[in-house]
């Protein structure tokens, strides 16, 4: 058993931390207020090799694996969770092409995505509910050499800025995965949701009206589209959400410790108050526990386990970390007192971002259902 990071992983931690502190920290408030997608920052992250961190080198990735991806998401989210959310959502399509795409699709789509020359979204959820994807109504009718898409997707993260959309639709009673490029007639971006957190990452409705795409836009095997999407959602989406939660927790915990050491009451720093130490100790235990659930699941993926084999490990990491993020951020707000909900201290912003994680990549209840089913089996 070895719980230590490799030297390369340690260097990655330092690199991403420095990047986040220099590039993201000064811009976080502004990005949140404006709500504009930060293309320039995403490009810088791609130049550092972070966007394609789990992808093969031959397609512009850096192939450092899932533990490395967790490091990147944790460190970015420690400062600014919405950019962790970019990894969570943007890498869904990257992984989809990587795992299930043809060589041609990898060359045409995966490479520009790893380099952030293009951005992609992944559209599964519909009005019928994200937790029951099999109830989806979007259709893909095969006509000659083309598929014709009709339907609506909702709550699609990055939908408004995506150059490529990976989606799942029904062909008769089979689920197929496809990709559609921006500008394809019949592919329309609908309204942007006004979510409380992750403000600079647009979440939109997407509308497909007689949208014709070539048969070569089918991703993976026919009829295996939903399986492909769920594989990607588990390995990338859920682990991504877990990593954002971990980073968001740690950022606010560190802010709370710093504040408690500096803020004086009754003639000494408030960290001397035992009631406050108890709160910090609880936060500390929660974060350490979440950290090891997250890194263990990612390590298993690096060992070659499939997302199906480690459904419980992934779900544990996601369900626990997301809840830790909520309670850690609330405790941090309590410790900071009146300052806790001011924008300058960034804690309330992390709480708002953390709330979004409760449903991202699957609800907390779906995580528990997955774990419960494995207990029953």
């Amino acid at each position, binding site marked *: 058993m070895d719980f230590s990071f490799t*030297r*390369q992983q340690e*260097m*990655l931690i*330092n*690199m991403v931390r*420095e*990047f986040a502190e220099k590039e993201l920290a000064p811009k976080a408030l502004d990005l949140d207020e404006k709500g504009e997608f930060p293309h320039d920052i995403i490009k810088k992250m791609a*130049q*550092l*090799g*972070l966007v394609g*961190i789990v992808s093969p*080198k031959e397609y512009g990735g*850096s*192939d*450092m694996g899932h533990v*490395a991806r967790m490091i990147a998401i944790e460190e970015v989210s420690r400062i600014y969770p919405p950019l962790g959310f970019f990894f969570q959502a943007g890498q869904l399509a990257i992984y989809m092409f990587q795992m299930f795409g043809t060589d041609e699709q990898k060359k045409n789509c995966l490479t520009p995505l790893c380099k952030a020359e293009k951005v992609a979204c992944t559209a599964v959820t519909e009005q019928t509910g994200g937790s029951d994807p099999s109830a989806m109504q979007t259709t893909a009718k095969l006509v000659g050499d083309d598929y014709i898409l009709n339907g609506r997707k909702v709550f699609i993260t990055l939908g408004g800025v995506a150059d490529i959309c990976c989606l799942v639709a029904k062909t008769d009673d089979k689920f197929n995965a496809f990709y559609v490029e921006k500008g394809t007639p019949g592919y329309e971006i609908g309204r942007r949701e006004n979510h409380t957190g992750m403000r600079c990452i647009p979440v939109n409705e997407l509308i497909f009206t007689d949208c014709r795409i070539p048969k070569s836009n089918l991703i993976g095997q026919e009829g295996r589209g939903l399986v492909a999407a769920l594989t990607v959602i588990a390995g990338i989406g859920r682990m991504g959400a877990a990593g954002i939660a971990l980073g968001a927790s740690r950022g606010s915990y560190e802010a709370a410790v710093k504040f408690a050491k500096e803020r*004086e009451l009754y003639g000494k720093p408030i960290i001397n108050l035992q009631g406050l130490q108890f709160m910090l100790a609880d936060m500390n235990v929660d974060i350490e526990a979440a950290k090891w659930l997250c890194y263990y699941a990612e390590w298993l993926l690096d060992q070659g386990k499939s997302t199906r084999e480690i459904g419980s490990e992934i779900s544990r990491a996601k369900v626990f970390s997301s809840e830790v993020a909520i309670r850690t951020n609330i405790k941090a707000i309590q410790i900071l007192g009146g300052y806790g909900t001011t924008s300058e201290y960034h804690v309330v912003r992390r709480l708002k971002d953390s709330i979004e994680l409760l449903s991202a990549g699957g609800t907390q209840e779906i995580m528990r259902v997955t774990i419960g089913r494995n207990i029953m089996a």
Partner: protein
Amino acid sequence: MSLNIVVCIKQVPDPEFFSKITIDPVKQTIRREGIPTIINPLDKYALEEGLRIKERFSGKVTVLSMGPPNAREVLEEALAMGIDDAALLCDGMFAGADTLATAYPLAGGIKKLGNFDLILCGNETVDGATGQVGPQLAELLGIPHITFVNEIKWTNERELIVNRALERGYMKLQVSLPVLISVVKGINEPRLPTVLGIMEAAEKDIKSFNAQDIDVSEANVGLDGSPTRVTGVFEHQSKRKGEMLEGLPEDIVKRAIKRLRELNAI
């Protein structure tokens, strides 16, 4: 035409943890256990400048450091930034060296590495802050040196004009290679290593030279070779105490002026 550039760097305690450094009252030495180490901040500017010069003229950048075995870590970080080659001068005999006894092995290491055109250093370190090693090294190598450099302009591949940042202005100097230049903050913005750079760094070989390899005499290195001695180390006790005024800015200003008058500060 390509240039052989050597950048000298030092592993130093992370300044963010300086407050956690304690002193061993018996041995009169600094306890560094548990204090993370980093590349001396100014040395990163030297590394970046070396890389930029290489990108302009082609050539090779080698990073050199003297230190204990774990100083390999800062060399790995330099390699991750894109430095071509690394060497560590490591020998128990080097321990306890002052600046001159550091410059001797560095000069030996540079000679061992072969031909060079340009040596780059950070102007000083955050732990010792003497700024002496660069100039001493240049003297031992018999080449000119220029310190406090915040800009290098090339007139051709062998000749450069540098800007020395001085307290009340600057000095422009023209110099030909070979030369040693110590750089200050502002000369560039050091790059971050990329993920690929980090992964490739692990595959690169780091040379290790001991005293015998670089042919330096025991009398010139380590504690014995050091003409200066640290006779005592003490912890600075700050007697100053801060006072925090809170409230509306207008009130704070009035109260601050009142307090400063009470203290006869204004």
